[in-house]
């Protein structure tokens, strides 16, 4: 009998130990919130019937909403609260809809000064809007790192002229700040933490991400181009003056998502993108790789899209600071992490796959200067070139690795992002 108790106790402690290590789930934030059908209905009606040029005010307080909010087809509209953390909308008990706040087909819209949390899908989605300012916002899920959290804290997609500033994003099961298929993007002074991906710019044209902090995500900042989407060939991005710190979080993304392939311990990834300039970033304490520049084939995901270019061309990485002190072994939960840990013998500041579009190579296998990956003035870095384009048939990916930076000593002019600075 005593023995049974002893064993049970051990099992309990073991269970507690594993639970507490496996994730940082917690009870969602529900205290202090009030639900009022009158409040909800009034806000719903304001959002639906607002006149062009008007302002919808969200009062200070913590409000539960059961129904999603939506704004459609407005011009020169502002929706604003008393400040992030002061006006809080919680969709914890949402009964319908895929978003907390959905904004569609608007021209000149400002969203500022409130918190959105715990929506069932995305907290804030904007579709087909032109001229958007999102500022002084907080968007989060309050149950910790949970794969059932919504996908995106901020999800502007197929928009034009987007400015996001002073926005905080956390605990998204995909990307905290996700900007998709959008033209002319500025994301600055934002703070993305504890998401799978902190900030993701996907299939966008002309983007600037600067003075942002990406911390404790699985991956800090991602510049992706992916197949099968209406806006093809994302390009022309500048990522500068950002802090990518300790992005070593567990990848709690869903297996179907692109970000599920991101190895914990990633600072920045450039995937299949043309024209990206990464400079003046501080990329500290990410345990697997600081910056990786990779072609889509390395994700292992199939695609069937003749318009899609899977390679990274015209990439410039300069004047960044790396610090890998005080970090442990690379993460091994994803293929890329295993490659780094085993094939490359540990953490790297910069990894490139070295595989520009084969169509661009000359008969000696050289990539013309305009399309090269250029790496300069990043200090004494740990570097690996996978030479992935030489990997054929059964040969192992690690067979072609070299550490020769001299081939990359060049620079590109004319990558001007959104040109806003």
């Amino acid at each position, binding site marked *: 009998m005593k023995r049974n108790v002893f064993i049970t106790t051990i099992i309990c402690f073991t269970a507690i130990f594993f639970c507490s290590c496996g994730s940082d789930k917690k009870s969602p934030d529900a205290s202090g919130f009030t639900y009022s059908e009158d409040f909800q*209905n009034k806000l*719903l*009606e304001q*959002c*639906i*019937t607002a006149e062009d040029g008007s302002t919808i005010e969200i009062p200070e307080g913590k409000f539960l909403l059961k*129904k999603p909010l*939506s*704004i*459609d*087809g407005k011009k020169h509209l502002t929706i604003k609260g008393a400040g992030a953390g002061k006006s809080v909308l919680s969709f914890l008990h*949402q*009964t*319908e*809809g*895929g*978003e907390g706040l*959905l904004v*569609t*087909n608007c021209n000149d819209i400002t969203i500022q000064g409130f918190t959105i949390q715990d*929506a*069932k*899908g*995305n907290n804030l989605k904007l*579709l*087909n809007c032109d001229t958007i300012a999102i500022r002084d916002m907080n968007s989060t899920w309050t149950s910790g790192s949970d*794969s*059932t*959290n*919504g*996908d*995106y804290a901020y*999800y502007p*997609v*197929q928009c034009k002229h987007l400015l996001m500033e002073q926005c905080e994003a956390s605990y998204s*099961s*995909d990307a905290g700040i*996700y900007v*998709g*298929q959008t033209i002319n993007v500025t994301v600055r002074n934002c703070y993305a933490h504890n998401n799978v991906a902190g900030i993701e710019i996907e299939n966008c044209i002309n983007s600037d991400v600067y003075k942002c902090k990406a911390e404790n995500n699985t991956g800090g900042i991602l510049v992706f181009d*992916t197949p*099968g*989407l*209406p806006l093809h060939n994302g390009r022309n991005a500048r990522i500068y003056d950002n802090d990518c710190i300790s992005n070593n979080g567990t990848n709690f993304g*869903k*297996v*179907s*998502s*692109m970000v599920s392939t991101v190895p914990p311990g990633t600072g920045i990834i450039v995937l299949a993108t043309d024209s990206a300039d990464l400079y003046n970033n501080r990329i500290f304490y990410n345990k697997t790789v600081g910056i990786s520049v990779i072609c889509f084939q390395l994700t292992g*995901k*199939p*695609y*069937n*899209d003749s318009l899609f270019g899977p390679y990274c061309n015209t990439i410039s990485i300069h004047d960044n600071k790396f610090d890998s002190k005080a970090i442990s072994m690379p993460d091994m939960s994803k293929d890329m992490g295993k490659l780094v840990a085993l094939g490359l013998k540990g953490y790297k500041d910069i990894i490139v796959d070295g595989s520009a579009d084969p169509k661009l190579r000359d008969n000696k296998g050289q990539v013309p200067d305009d399309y090269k990956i250029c790496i300069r003035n990043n200090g004494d870095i740990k570097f690996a070139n996978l030479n992935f384009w030489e990997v054929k048939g059964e040969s192992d990916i690690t067979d072609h690795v070299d550490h020769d930076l001299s081939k990359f000593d060049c620079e590109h002019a004319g990558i001007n992002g959104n040109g806003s600075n």
Partner: protein
Amino acid sequence: MKKISVLLIACACCFLLIFFSRCMSGSSAVTVDTNYKEPFKKLSQYHFFKGDIKQLTPNDRVLPYDLITPLFSDYALKARFVWMPEGTAAKYVKDEVLDFPVGTVLIKNFYFPADFRDLSKGKKIIETRLLIHKPDKWDALTYVWNADQTDADLNIIGDTKSIDWIDKNGNKVHDEYSVPNKNQCKTCHAYNGTLSPIGPKVRNMNHDYSYTDGNANELDRWAAAGYLTGYNKADNIDNKMAKWDDSTTGDINARARAYIDVNCAHCHRKEGMANPTGLYLNFTNQNEASLGILKTPEAAGSGAGNFLYDVIPGKPDESIMPYRMTIDEPGKMMPQIGRKLVHTEGVALIKQWIAGMEQSSTNNKK
């Protein structure tokens, strides 16, 4: 003096005549002012129905119609009508919604029988949705019926209704039915960002309807009523969708494509709200990748479960599409709005379709 009294009598006669003719017909003519700033607050003000309004007996020139394969809305039955101003008609369009004239009203009543096995046991009308073609654009209006079923009130912000019924198998069903708000109407009714009807397409109306005076092809009836011009019957013999639950109308592929066209493609088409996903399920799409075959999802999040692709030929239980149809949780389910319940029979159809797809190459022939 005499003249005046004759005039008076004549006037009185006129008034009496008008009065009686109105009584005889039971109601006034349909009243639609397409230039309205504020729409009517009550459904009855339009006079679409004569007599006891809950009987939904159409007024003059209000023409009933239905669709071969309808959208699933928590098993609601729908009574559809169209009205157009005198002397106007919709223009024939082959593959898209008919080109309706300004002033058109599409009227859709959502109701639930108390017992799906015996419709004579009464019904409850929940809402009536109108699409009115104003001079510059379509407008979507929803009227929610009162408890006594004597009229319906304009609703902007949506509503939730608790409804109970007995289904066709004799099971009790409870539903927290959602009446959409005005913006949610447009979520589905969006075509390149502007509001548009979805249902009245030739291929989904090209069948017989049981009119009070007998069966007739809907399009023939619309043409005969002066509501459709430019329609050539001979050109459209095969322009016809399968009925999703009637195997005599098409094979599994034809019925599944009809089902996903009607239930998914209002958003999942290039012109719809789900354009960013690259998943296009409209009837005329023949591109395997954008039909979801071995396509990785975009922004499906937890709605994707533990699965990698929208559709894996031969593997319905590992495909995201039927999986999202079996969920009833907001944010994960598909469609995102318009249903609270799972359409068990629809899921079975899509699973059967995927199970039968050849695993090497996929067959999407119509």
